[in-house]
């Protein structure tokens, strides 16, 4: 029987994964690229909010890399509960923020292994570089990721392969180890030289860092949701709906049982409109202002406070009184309030 010569590439579209793709493809191996959708990609969220401030829409870099190298690509949706549960209970802990990078890589590579098996491919490869990232790309964690994902011996890192033990496809001669590289560390110099040599001309700048979980402000909102649920006697968990809200609007913690999210732009207001079910929707009645949502079970005082903050961020912020409509399903109430003017108080409630 002919040996399989197909491989699965995990690509983000960044420089490293694009180069890994080019290196393996150059060895005549059929490659299928996969790109994981987690719901935490900053670029995707930017696109959902209408693009960059200059009006341009960022391209999907994984798709761009696959198109440039003419490699078949499939998106894999990871944004379901299994992935979210992992984020809340990571076996190997978090990085500097809410980023459980080792667990996340293991989760992704388990799915990659399933795809490898379903496709009859011989191995999985990535653009990981030894020593490039402090948590997930150390020698010991690269090994843990390989072991725990079930890809033992079948996980190739072409950019650092010569610094790592030979994998099964290298030992079997499916991949020529001599044509792989020995790059390590955070410098991108060798990758840029390689890009020029391989004719790879298009990659996103700056490199890396497209994940909200590594963002300090997002991270505070993420843990605030978990802590508030726990304080309210609920399970520490995060659901899909939370993910969109965490990257949208100004967040104010009114109490463990109630949070206010205030839209900052028209696009964010429109996004919030899609998440009104199960939440209260607030908006100033007679003056322009943001759409806001209250999540949870606020007390009467917290309702009034939420209305005052919503009034503060609208055109009526300098008026003595503003009427704010509070809608929950078919129920509509009006609160005539003084816009909140105590900025220190607002800051104390702000999350992120």
């Amino acid at each position, binding site marked *: 029987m002919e040996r399989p010569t197909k491989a699965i590439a995990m690509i983000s579209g960044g420089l490293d994964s694009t180069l890994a793709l080019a290196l393996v493809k150059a060895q005549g191996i059929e490659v299928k690229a996969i790109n994981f959708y987690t719901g935490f990609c900053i670029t995707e969220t930017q696109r959902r909010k209408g693009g960059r401030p200059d009006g341009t829409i960022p391209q999907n870099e994984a798709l761009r890399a696959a198109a440039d190298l*003419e490699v078949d690509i499939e998106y894999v949706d990871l944004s379901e509960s299994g992935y979210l549960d992992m984020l809340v209970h990571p076996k190997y802990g978090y990085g500097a923020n809410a980023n459980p990078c080792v667990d996340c890589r293991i989760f992704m590579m388990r799915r990659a292994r399933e795809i490898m098996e379903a496709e009859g491919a011989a191995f999985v490869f990535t653009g990981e570089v030894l020593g490039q990232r402090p948590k997930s790309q150390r020698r010991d964690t690269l090994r843990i990721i390989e072991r725990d994902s079930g890809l033992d011996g079948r996980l190739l890192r072409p950019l650092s392969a010569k610094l790592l033990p030979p994998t099964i496809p290298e030992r079997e001669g499916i991949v020529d180890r001599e044509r792989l590289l020995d790059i390590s560390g955070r410098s991108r110099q060798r990758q840029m030289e390689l890009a020029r040599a391989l004719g790879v001309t298009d990659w996103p700048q700056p490199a890396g860092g497209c994940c909200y979980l590594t963002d300090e402000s997002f991270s505070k909102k993420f843990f605030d949701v978990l802590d508030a649920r726990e304080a309210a006697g609920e399970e520490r968990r995060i659901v899909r709906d939370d993910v969109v809200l965490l990257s949208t609007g100004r967040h104010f913690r009114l109490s463990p049982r109630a949070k206010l999210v205030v839209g900052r732009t028209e696009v964010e207001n429109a996004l919030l409109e899609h998440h009104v079910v199960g939440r209260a929707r607030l908006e100033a009645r007679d003056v322009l202002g943001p759409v806001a949502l209250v999540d949870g079970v606020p007390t009467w005082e917290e309702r009034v406070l939420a209305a005052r903050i919503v009034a503060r961020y609208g055109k009526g912020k300098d008026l003595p009184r503003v009427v704010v409509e509070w809608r929950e399903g078919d129920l509509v109430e009006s609160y005539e309030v003084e816009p909140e003017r105590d900025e220190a108080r607002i800051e104390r409630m702000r999350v992120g």
Partner: protein
Amino acid sequence: MRACPPAEGSLKGDAVTLAAMPQPAETIDTSGRLCPFPIVETAKAVRRLADGAVLLVIATDPGIAIDMPMWCKATRNEHLGTYQDGAAWKSFVRKGRR
């Protein structure tokens, strides 16, 4: 109606209009779904088609205008054109011959 630049090797220029697009064998409506799901749905639908058949993808995510030509190039399908039609985008894809 506004045409997005067609993919390299497919129809040229803005002269080709929505009305001139071939009759699709299948239409999918991804309205309300955002990147990358219009492309995910496209991939699933193209798998069901016969070689050479045309798929019409309706989307409200403007990102489809840049995603679809790239996806077609990567997967060796033919991007016939993507057009803005009111609030929606209409993208035509011909399944490549394998």
